[in-house]
C-alpha cells in the first residue's frame, strides 16, 4: 500500500513556505515571486500525483491544488481554491455517491482523531470529461489523506492525494507494446474474463462475460460482483472469498446458478484469482466465468438416464485402491449412501454365493487378461430382498498396456429377469400340458386305430356273407326267381360292392392319417408312368390319349403316398373324361427353386370352382353315384397324403372345360446327379 512518506517530516516546512501567511480565498499568491521556494512549488505542481492541500480544522477548505489534479478533474484552480472539499466532491454523481462522500468524510475525520495518515481502498469514481463532448470517465482512484503538523505538533493541514489506478492490463500491455494482440486475446477468449477491484467492482470485462451474465457492460458495472453472482447471499459470498482474502489459497472456484435479468437461469463456474500484477502496487481479482449449462444439463440427463435405466457406474483404481460408485449402485445394492463404496472383497456380501463365484471369476479374469466381461448375477440386499443385475466391466490400460484400473456398470434387470422366469415357468407348464394333450391324443389315436381295425374286420365279414349268399341265391335258385327277384339280387350285390369300396377307401384314409411316411428321392417321371401302366386297360377301353413326356424330375416324397395320390388323380381324370369326344389326359411338371409343381390335366366335365374347397373334403361328391361311381374319399385322401408329405394340392377347373390338379412337392436337392 502507498504511504505518503516524503511529506511526513518536512512537509510542514514546505507547505508553510508555499502558503501565504494569511489564508487566501480567491486570489492565489504567485509563489514565483519568492525564488527560494520555487523548486518546492515546482515539485508540488509537477508531481504526477493528484494532490490537494486541505485545512485540517476549517471544513477541509482547499488551500492548494496541483496541476495533475486539475488536469485529471478538468477543474480550474481559481474555482476550487478556498472552497470546502465537499463542494467539489463528488466530482460527478454516481449511484453510490452518498457512500463515497461518507467514506471520504470518515477517512478525513480519522486523520483528525488518529493524527495519522488514512487510506481509502480503490473505488470507482466518475470523472467529468475534459472535453465537453465526451462522456464522463470511470476511473479507479485510491485516495489517501495525510496529516501535516506544525512545529509545535498541531495538525494544520491534510494532504489529500488521489492515485489513478490505470487498468493494469492495459498498462502491462502498453509496456510490452502489444496492446492490440493482448486486447484481442482478452476480448475473444471463449470464457468470460474480468478484472475486479478488491471490493468487487469491475475494472474490465470481455464480451463473453457480458453474454454469460446476460447484460450489457454498462449495466453490469453498475453492480458489483457480489450483486451479480451472490445476490441476497452474503454468507455464500463471504465463504467463497474468505480463503482467498485470508491468503490461504490463490484461486477459488465454485459453481453457481446465475439468474439472468430475463428470468432464465444458467449454471456457471467461477474462478477467482487474487493477483498482483507486475509494476502494480495494488491487488486485483482476476475472474474467469464459464458457462457450464450444457455440461450441467448433460450431467443431469446422464444422471437421469442412469436412474431410469437403473444403471450404476463403478471404478476401481488398482494402484491407489480407490473405489468409486455412482448413486445408482448404492440404490441397487441397497447400501447406505453415507458409507464409502464397498471394496472388492466386501462387495461379496451383496451376492448369492453362486452369483459371486461367477462374477468374481469374471472380474479376476478381466484383471489378469484385460478383457471385458458381462454376466448376470443375483443380488441380496442387506434387507434380504433379491435383485438381478447385469454386471459389465472392462480394464483400463496404461499406454504400455499395463492394467491401471477396472471399471464397469451394474444394471438392475430384476423386472426382466422376473418376466423371464415367469415365461420359463409358463413354458414348462405349457410343455407339460402339451405332453398331457399328446398323451391324450395318442390314446385317442390308438382307440381310433382299433376302431378302424374292427371296422375292417367286422363290417367286411357280414358284407362277405351278403355277397356270398346273394351269389348262391342267384346261381342256385335262378330258375325259381322271376326277373324282378333277379333284379333285387343284383341290386343287393351292387350295394355290397359300393359298401366294400367305401370301407376300403375309409381304411386307406385312416391309414394315411396314421402311417409313417418316409420321404425319399423319387423320380416323378418314372412314378407317373408306373401309375399310368396300372390303368392301361381303362385307358385303351376309352381310347384316352395320354401325354406324359416328363423330364426326369426328382422330388422328396414317400413312394407309396405319392403313388396313391397319382393313382387317385389319374383315376378321377379317366372317370370324368372318358365320355368326352376325344378324351385326353396330360401330365406336366415345372421346377422351381425349392419345389416342384406337377399337374394332371383332363378335358372332361370339369367342375364349378365354387366347389373347389368342398371337393377335397371327405364324403363330398359332386355327382350322382349312378353317373360317376365313387366313395367321396379319393380327393380327401389325396389332400391328406400331400399334407403328410409337406406338399400341397389344388385344382383349377370350369364346368365342361376339364380340370387340372396341381401338386407341389419339395424338390430333391443333391450335389451329384441322383442316378
Amino acid at each position, binding site marked *: 500500500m502507498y504511504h505518503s512518506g516524503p511529506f511526513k517530516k518536512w512537509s510542514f516546512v514546505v507547505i508553510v513556505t508555499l502558503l501565504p501567511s494569511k489564508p487566501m480565498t480567491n486570489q492565489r499568491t504567485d509563489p514565483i515571486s519568492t525564488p527560494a521556494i520555487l523548486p518546492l512549488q515546482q515539485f508540488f505542481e509537477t508531481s504526477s500525483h493528484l494532490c490537494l492541500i486541505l485545512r485540517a480544522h476549517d471544513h477541509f477548505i482547499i488551500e492548494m491544488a496541483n496541476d495533475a489534479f486539475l488536469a485529471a478533474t478538468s477543474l480550474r484552480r481559481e474555482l476550487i481554491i478556498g472552497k470546502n472539499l465537499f463542494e467539489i466532491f463528488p466530482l460527478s454523481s454516481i449511484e453510490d455517491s452518498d457512500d463515497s462522500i461518507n467514506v471520504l468524510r470518515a477517512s478525513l475525520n480519522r486523520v483528525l482523531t488518529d493524527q495519522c495518515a488514512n487510506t481509502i481502498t480503490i473505488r470507482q469514481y466518475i470523472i467529468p470529461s475534459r472535453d465537453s463532448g465526451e462522456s464522463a470517465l470511470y476511473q479507479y482512484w485510491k485516495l489517501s489523506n495525510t496529516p501535516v503538523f506544525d512545529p509545535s505538533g498541531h495538525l494544520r493541514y491534510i494532504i489529500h492525494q488521489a492515485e489513478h489506478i490505470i487498468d493494469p492490463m492495459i498498462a502491462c500491455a502498453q509496456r510490452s507494446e502489444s496492446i492490440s494482440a493482448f486486447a484481442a486475446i482478452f476480448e475473444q477468449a471463449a470464457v468470460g474474463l474480468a478484472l475486479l477491484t478488491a471490493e468487487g467492482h469491475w475494472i474490465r470485462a470481455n464480451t463473453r462475460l457480458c453474454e454469460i451474465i446476460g447484460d450489457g457492460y454498462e449495466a453490469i458495472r453498475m453492480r458489483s460482483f457480489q450483486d451479480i453472482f451472490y445476490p441476497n447471499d452474503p454468507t455464500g459470498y463471504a465463504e467463497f472469498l474468505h480463503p482467498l482474502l485470508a491468503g490461504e489459497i490463490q484461486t477459488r472456484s465454485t459453481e453457481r446458478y446465475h439468474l439472468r435479468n430475463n428470468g432464465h437461469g444458467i449454471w456457471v463456474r467461477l474462478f477467482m484469482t487474487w493477483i498482483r500484477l507486475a509494476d502494480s502496487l495494488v491487488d486485483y481479482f482476476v475472474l474467469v466465468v464459464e458457462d457450464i449449462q450444457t455440461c450441467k444439463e448433460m450431467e443431469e440427463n446422464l444422471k437421469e438416464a442412469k436412474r431410469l435405466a437403473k444403471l450404476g457406474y463403478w471404478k476401481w483404481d488398482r494402484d491407489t485402491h480407490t473405489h468409486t460408485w455412482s448413486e445408482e449402485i448404492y440404490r441397487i445394492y441397497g447400501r447406505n449412501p453415507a458409507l464409502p463404496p464397498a471394496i472388492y472383497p466386501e462387495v461379496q456380501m451383496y451376492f448369492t454365493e453362486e452369483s459371486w463365484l461367477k462374477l468374481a471369476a469374471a472380474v479376476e479374469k478381466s484383471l489378469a487378461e484385460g478383457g471385458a466381461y458381462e454376466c448376470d448375477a443375483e443380488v441380496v440386499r442387506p434387507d434380504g430382498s433379491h435383485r438381478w443385475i447385469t454386471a459389465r466391466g472392462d480394464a483400463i490400460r496404461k499406454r504400455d498396456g499395463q492394467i491401471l484400473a477396472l471399471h464397469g456398470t451394474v444394471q438392475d434387470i430384476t423386472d426382466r429377469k422376473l418376466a423371464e422366469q415367469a415365461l420359463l415357468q409358463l413354458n414348462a407348464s405349457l410343455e407339460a400340458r402339451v405332453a398331457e394333450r399328446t398323451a391324450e391324443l395318442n390314446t385317442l389315436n390308438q382307440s381310433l386305430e382299433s376302431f378302424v*381295425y*374292427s371296422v*375292417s*374286420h*367286422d363290417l*367286411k*365279414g*357280414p*358284407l*362277405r*356273407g351278403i*355277397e*356270398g*349268399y346273394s*351269389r*348262391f341265391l342267384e346261381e342256385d335258385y335262378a330258375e325259381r326267381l322271376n326277373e324282378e327277384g333277379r333284379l333285387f339280387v343284383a341290386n343287393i350285390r351292387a350295394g*355290397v*360292392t359300393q359298401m*366294400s369300396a367305401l370301407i376300403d377307401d375309409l*381304411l386307406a384314409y385312416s391309414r394315411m392319417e396314421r*402311417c409313417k411316411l418316409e420321404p425319399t428321392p423319387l423320380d416323378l417321371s418314372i412314378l407317373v408312368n408306373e401309375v399310368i401302366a396300372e390303368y392301361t386297360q381303362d385307358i385303351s377301353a376309352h381310347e384316352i390319349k395320354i401325354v406324359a413326356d416328363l423330364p426326369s424330375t426328382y422330388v422328396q416324397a414317400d413312394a407309396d403316398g405319392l403313388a396313391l395320390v397319382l393313382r387317385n388323380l389319374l383315376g378321377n381324370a379317366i372317370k370324368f373324361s372318358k365320355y368326352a369326344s376325344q378324351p385326353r389326359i396330360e401330365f406336366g411338371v415345372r421346377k422351381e427353386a425349392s419345389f416342384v409343381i406337377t399337374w394332371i390335366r383332363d378335358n372332361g366335365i370339369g367342375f364349378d370352382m365354387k366347389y373347389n374347397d368342398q371337393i377335397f373334403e371327405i364324403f363330398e361328391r359332386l355327382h350322382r353315384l349312378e353317373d360317376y361311381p365313387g366313395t367321396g374319399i379319393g380327393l380327401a385322401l389325396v389332400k391328406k397324403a400331400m399334407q403328410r408329405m409337406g406338399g400341397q394340392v389344388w385344382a383349377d377347373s370350369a364346368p365342361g372345360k376339364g380340370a387340372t390338379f396341381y401338386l407341389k412337392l419339395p424338390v430333391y436337392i443333391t450335389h451329384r446327379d441322383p442316378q
Partner: protein
Amino acid sequence: MTSHPPILLVEDNPLDVDLTLRAFKRRNLVNPVHVARDGEEALAWIPLWEAGETQPAVILLDLNMPRIDGLSVLRSLKTRDGLRRIPIVILTTSKEDRDINTAYDLGANSYIVKPVDFDNFLQVAQQIELYWCITNELPR
C-alpha cells in the same frame, strides 16, 4: 391213393365258415375240413396231434377271434417242436401292415386277405386247395 390229410379251418364267423365250406365243396375238395370256432378250440387240437392224430395239410387261421386270437394260436403252434412244421395260412379280412408283419414274424407260411367279392373268394378257396393240398410237399 392214401387218405387225404385234413384242413383245419379256424374261424369264428359262422357265415364265413359256411361260405368257406361251400366254396370248397364247389371246387370238389377231397380233403376233410375240420372247423375250430375260435382260438381255444384250435388249441384243443394240440394234444390230439401230439398223441398221434394226423396233422392237417394246412391250417387256415382267422386273426380276430374272441378269447384267444389268431396270432396267439399261431405263436403257440410255431413254438412247439412237433407242430411248428404244419403250414399255417392266415385268412383274414385285415389288411393292416401290423398284422401282416407280426404274422410272418411269428412264422406264418402265407397271408391271404379274404375278398368280399364272392368270385374272388371262390378263386382264393381254389388256390388254397390247389397249392396247399396238391402242389405243396408236406413235411415228413
